[in-house]
């Protein structure tokens, strides 16, 4: 699971109002290289929750992203490459996603998060 996917997932348990971002617990991280696409990244920057990405990337062992970023930084090739790596190339292969409000755990196996709910959570 890329951190771009993590940036869209939210805890979907009934009654939960604050289900984002899911906290990551890491068992295994893998890196897969992806072609660098600056236009795509600039477009994504406006859409994602940057703070959630920074925190997630640090938990995944990548500490290069600055705490805060603003659109002007998209002119920097250095920043874009770091942003690219964090967003597209780091994968949570094995681990857990934890609902920030209830502590409910969603397992991630072979890179696939299991967001299925029990009957009493729907």
């Amino acid at each position, binding site marked *: 699971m890329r951190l771009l996917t993590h940036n869209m997932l939210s805890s979907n348990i009934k009654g939960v109002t604050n289900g984002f971002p899911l906290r990551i617990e890491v068992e295994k991280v893998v890196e897969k290289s992806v072609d660098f696409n600056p236009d795509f990244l600039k477009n994504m920057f406006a859409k994602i929750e940057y703070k959630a990405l920074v925190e997630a990337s640090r938990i995944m062992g990548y500490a290069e992203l600055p705490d805060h970023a603003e659109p002007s930084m998209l002119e920097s090739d250095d920043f874009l490459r770091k942003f690219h790596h964090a967003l597209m190339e780091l994968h949570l292969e094995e681990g857990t996603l934890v609902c920030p409000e209830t502590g409910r755990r969603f397992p991630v196996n072979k890179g696939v998060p299991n967001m299925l709910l029990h009957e009493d959570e*729907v």
Partner: protein
Amino acid sequence: MKLKQLEGLLGSLEQFYNPKIELEQYPTGSHIASRMLYTAENSFGDVTNKVVADFGCGCGTLGIAAALLGAQHVVGLDIDAESLEIASENADELELDMEFVQCDIRNLRWEGQIIDTVVMNPPFGTRRKGADMDFLCVALKVASEAVYSLHKTTTREHVRRTALRDCHASSAEVLCELRYDVPHLYKFHKKKEVDIAVDLWRFVPKKNQ
């Protein structure tokens, strides 16, 4: 990529070993899948460099078609672990990066407006009434640009009405009518193979819901 080439690659994908009737698992044929994604890209520019989600992806055919046409990030979502396993192998076989999430589309909650385009071949609702409209309503919430979906031609007016009235579509357009081959998969199928008429739809969501 040419249409024929896309269709050829999709034709090589593995399909369901043990299709589950309660989920209305029918493979999306390479003929339909290739035309669907080819139209989405060549007529509307909704695939290349985009973020695409495949709802109820099954063995991954539509999502893989999107990845083959240069989508930057493709997520396949399905409730069934076995299907996701096959879809993942299919993507690996073609050396495509595709993401998967196991979930029930009906209670998906998604943050932000990252998804550009949703593609889907939803359950037609022959087993569980309204299943296709449930998928469509969630898709229109999640997509920021467009939703491509297949629905039985016999339900055309119902689909149009529901999309515009209940699912916050700002437009609903039938792009073409296709023949959907339903192979003899399940015991209750009496005929060896039938084809049914399906519509390829393009829906545009209302912005800022």
